[in-house]
């Protein structure tokens, strides 16, 4: 009496498959196809297939945009890691109540629309803003500094927007660290630094990697931060796509840029899963992919 085992939940998975096909695979394929279409201007295109859109990306102006985006993403990820690691680490060492309060505090800003939070940063940084007011009040400066609409302002915005992701992923992996291992190392004569470097750091590495992916990838596309805090002067791949899609009216070209961006992102994600498999045998970071 052998009956074929059927997964009792298989029917419940149908909506998931339908959604994946229609909302993820479908649009991706359409985008891929669109990237080979011929532009007719003002948002119109024909299905005459061409490689022209990809050739255009090779133009130094557009290549430069990719290069600048990667640089900005790299820089903000480094900053986010430097700030986020101690933060997440410290959080994991708090009492249960302390952890709950910190988690709550980190989550609360997500309840506010990110655009509104960015306008908050404008109020802080603008010429007649709070920060300049304080600096002038302390007689540190005489004339207001031009902080807004600059590269550093965009960097501040990126770090601000993406820091929680880093903190949370470091926190989640630091929380699982078995601290008795550290105690054992200390008992056996390891210095604090040594214990941290040989035990805590490797064990939290998967958290760092997932944090890096979670902050590096979005930075390339968060065009509205560059728009609002950078005054549109820092052109990211995301802003380029948006620009070509709307004002430029060149859909096939923006699709081609989006395809390249998707490829870069996928390569990053794949190498991430590869590295995390090599580093974190515990497989903690693998939850991401």
């Amino acid at each position: 009496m052998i009956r074929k085992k059927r997964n009792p939940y298989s029917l419940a998975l149908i909506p998931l498959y339908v959604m994946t096909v229609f909302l993820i695979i479908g649009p991706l394929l359409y985008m891929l196809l669109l990237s080979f279409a011929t532009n007719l201007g003002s948002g119109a295109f024909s299905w005459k297939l061409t490689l022209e859109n990809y050739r255009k990306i090779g133009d130094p102006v557009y290549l430069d945009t990719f290069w600048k985006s990667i640089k900005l993403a790299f820089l903000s990820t480094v900053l986010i890691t430097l700030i986020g690691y101690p933060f997440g680490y410290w959080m994991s060492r708090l009492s249960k109540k302390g952890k709950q309060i910190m988690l709550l505090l980190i989550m609360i800003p997500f309840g506010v629309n990110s655009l509104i939070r960015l306008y908050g940063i404008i109020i802080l940084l603008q010429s007649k803003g709070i920060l300049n007011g304080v600096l002038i009040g302390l007689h540190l400066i005489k004339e207001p500094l031009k902080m807004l609409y600059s590269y550093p302002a965009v960097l501040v915005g990126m770090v601000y927007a993406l820091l929680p992701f880093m903190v949370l992923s470091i926190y989640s992996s630091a929380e699982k660290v078995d601290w008795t291992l550290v105690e054992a190392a200390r008992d056996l004569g390891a210095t604090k630094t040594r214990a941290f470097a040989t035990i805590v750091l490797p064990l939290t590495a998967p958290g760092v990697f997932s944090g890096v992916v979670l902050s590096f990838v979005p930075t390339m596309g968060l065009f509205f931060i560059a728009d609002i805090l950078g005054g549109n002067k820092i052109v990211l791949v995301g802003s380029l796509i948006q620009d070509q899609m709307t004002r430029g009216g060149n859909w096939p070209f923006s699709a081609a840029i989006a395809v390249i961006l998707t490829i870069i992102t996928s390569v990053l994600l794949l190498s991430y899963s590869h590295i995390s498999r090599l580093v974190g045998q515990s497989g903690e970071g693998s939850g991401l992919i």
Partner: protein
Amino acid sequence: MKKTLYAVLAAVLIAALCLTVSCSKEKKQELVIYTWEAMFPDEVLEDFTKETGIDVVYSTFDTNETMLEKLSKADGGTYDLVIGDDYIIDAAIKRGLAQKLDKSKISDFGNINPLFQSHYYDPNNEYTVPYGAGIPVIVYDPEKVDWKITGYNDLWDPRLKDSVSITANYRVINGITLLSMGKSLNENDVDVIKQAGEKLLALAPNIRLIQDDDAHLALLNGEASVAFLYTSQVTTVLQSNPNLKVVFPSEGLGIGIMDFFIPSKAPNSEAAHKFLEYFLRPEVSAKCFDYLGYYCTTKAADSLVNPDLVVPEFFDGEIIQNVSLEADEQYNKNWIEFKSACD
């Protein structure tokens, strides 16, 4: 019980029918105006009805494109008078959806400011009467700029380092660069557009920010001392700070115009002509533009309308039109290069 109920219902119905029939028998004239919401002060429409006995039916659309589609489904009928933007009127006229105006019925046709006439969509002024114009202009804060700005070329002045705020439309910004070179806003020659791109790069050090929505706020919060702004933004900043100076650039203006036209099969084109005649009276025009907040297109009303809405004399104006694909591509490239050079 039920029977009485039916009887009462029937009586009500019959009474209602009689009422509607008697109403329609009176045969009141109607004028169907089709445009965006809130384009006229109530007073203007009410006065028209009082004066002529013609009822105004105000029908609205959200976008120019919807209007063109509906009008073309109605085959140029249903509506008596339409207001839309320049480019869509071009399409409507080309599709034969507009009728020529009978100027003998519009005695005040000469009241229109010629700056807003004879443009590409109606070169001989046969179909349209302008109803307000949007003109991007330069606005500056005299407290921060102690010299006189007169045109686009002044934006390149090194004294304005890192203090100019501009709108984010690639055709408009390329366009004013071309105008500053004495070329057309709609230049099609790729080489000339490339030259404009090079000139645009030289503007980069002066740029504080490039934005469509907030370009004007920078003037108020102290981030910029000069801005190149759309009409609605100019109105907003002047309300907050009346000391700001508005400059109509001497090299020529880029303009967007809204116009009236009468659909080809308008049921009551007679009433539409009457309304145009009525609108072109200086005092009526002035009321409309004060309400609308766009630049006054009726020359005869210039002395009556809010002075901020008057375009000074002796200006040239051009409307942005579609250009060839190659030209458009170069415009886009100029734009990205320019933006990247600004940081």
